[in-house]
């Protein structure tokens, strides 16, 4: 199913490679600022995603690989694809930039990230301390995913679920913040102001909240309904953040 979806996405990305659109395609700051960067990055991504989908389809039909291995291959391939597409978009934009005379310029100050990083990392430490204190009360199997009714639909071992997955989830945003700082054009909204860092920090608060709630659920302190409510809150927060960052 995922393989077929990849093929469809790949073909559509390739078909729409000449027209920047809000629906499908790889998008970085560079691809929004240059049609040529969009075209080259999406031509590459379209072809590669289609080939990846075909390979995964053949592999899943012929070899009996587990879902986790399938997902691992998919994640690694997609990460490589994103990095290469970014490099293509960056090179195209910068070469195009060398061809264009400059008008009156003003410096672009890139915000410092120290404050944002500290604020984002604090919940990770708080979570670790809380988990350590309550370790004996956490059940050996913990719920790590919930369906739309708030009923757990995926469980994991205590250490993996309550520590590893939670910490990884809370480390993504600080990593993105750092990445956004060293490569300000990586996102749709180049990180030249503080908006994208505010966006990521608020997002981190939500991820931390969801992680804490999952822990409290496993300790029988909160119900599944609270988890569902936090899911809806996430959608609302995300839409609000997008509105805030896009400046509309």
């Amino acid at each position: 199913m995922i393989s077929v979806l990849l093929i469809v996405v790949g073909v559509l990305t390739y078909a729409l490679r000449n027209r920047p659109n809000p629906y499908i395609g790889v998008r970085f700051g560079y691809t929004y600022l240059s049609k040529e960067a969009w075209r080259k990055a999406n031509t590459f991504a379209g072809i590669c995603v289609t080939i990846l989908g075909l390979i995964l389809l053949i592999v899943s039909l012929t070899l009996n690989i587990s879902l986790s291995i399938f997902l691992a291959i998919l994640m690694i391939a997609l990460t490589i694809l994103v990095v290469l597409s970014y490099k293509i978009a960056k090179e195209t934009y910068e070469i195009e930039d060398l061809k264009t005379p400059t008008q009156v310029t003003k410096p672009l100050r890139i915000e410092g990230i120290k404050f944002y990083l500290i604020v984002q990392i604090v919940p990770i430490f708080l979570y670790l301390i809380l988990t350590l204190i309550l370790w004996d009360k956490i059940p050996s199997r913990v719920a790590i995913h919930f369906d739309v009714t708030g009923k757990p639909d995926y469980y994991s071992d205590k250490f993996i679920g309550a520590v590893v997955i939670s910490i990884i989830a809370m480390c993504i945003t600080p990593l993105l913040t750092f990445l956004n700082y060293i490569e300000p054009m990586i996102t749709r909204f180049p990180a030249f102001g503080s908006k994208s860092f505010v966006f990521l920090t608020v997002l981190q608060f939500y991820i931390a909240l969801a992680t804490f709630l999952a822990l409290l659920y496993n300790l029988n302190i909160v119900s599944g309904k609270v988890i569902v409510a936090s899911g809806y809150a996430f959608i609302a927060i995300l839409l609000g953040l997008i509105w805030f960052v896009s400046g509309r």
Partner: protein
Amino acid sequence: MRDEAVKKFRKEIRSGIYAYLVLKILESGSLHGYAIRKKIEEITEGKFVPSEGTLYDILKGLQKRGLVESFWVVDVRPRKCYRITESGKIVLKEIESEIETLREIIGRVGGL
């Protein structure tokens, strides 16, 4: 075959000269990539002008070696400017004395 050899030889000679010219130009102040290319065109009277792709590779190489660093400015969209680093200035000084020696050698070879 011969054309290919000339092309390769020319590329090898020019890339070093371009890197030197970029450092020399940036020594007197930071510039946008387009302006660097224009300056090279001006200095060489249009005889040695790198293509945008070549200049991109040269700037990338110089940045990788820590001799040049880039920073963003904006006109209608974000643009990249370049400046020489302290280690770039030191390297440039060392290269300049070598360039003098090379000039002498090439002059002597011409008289052979």
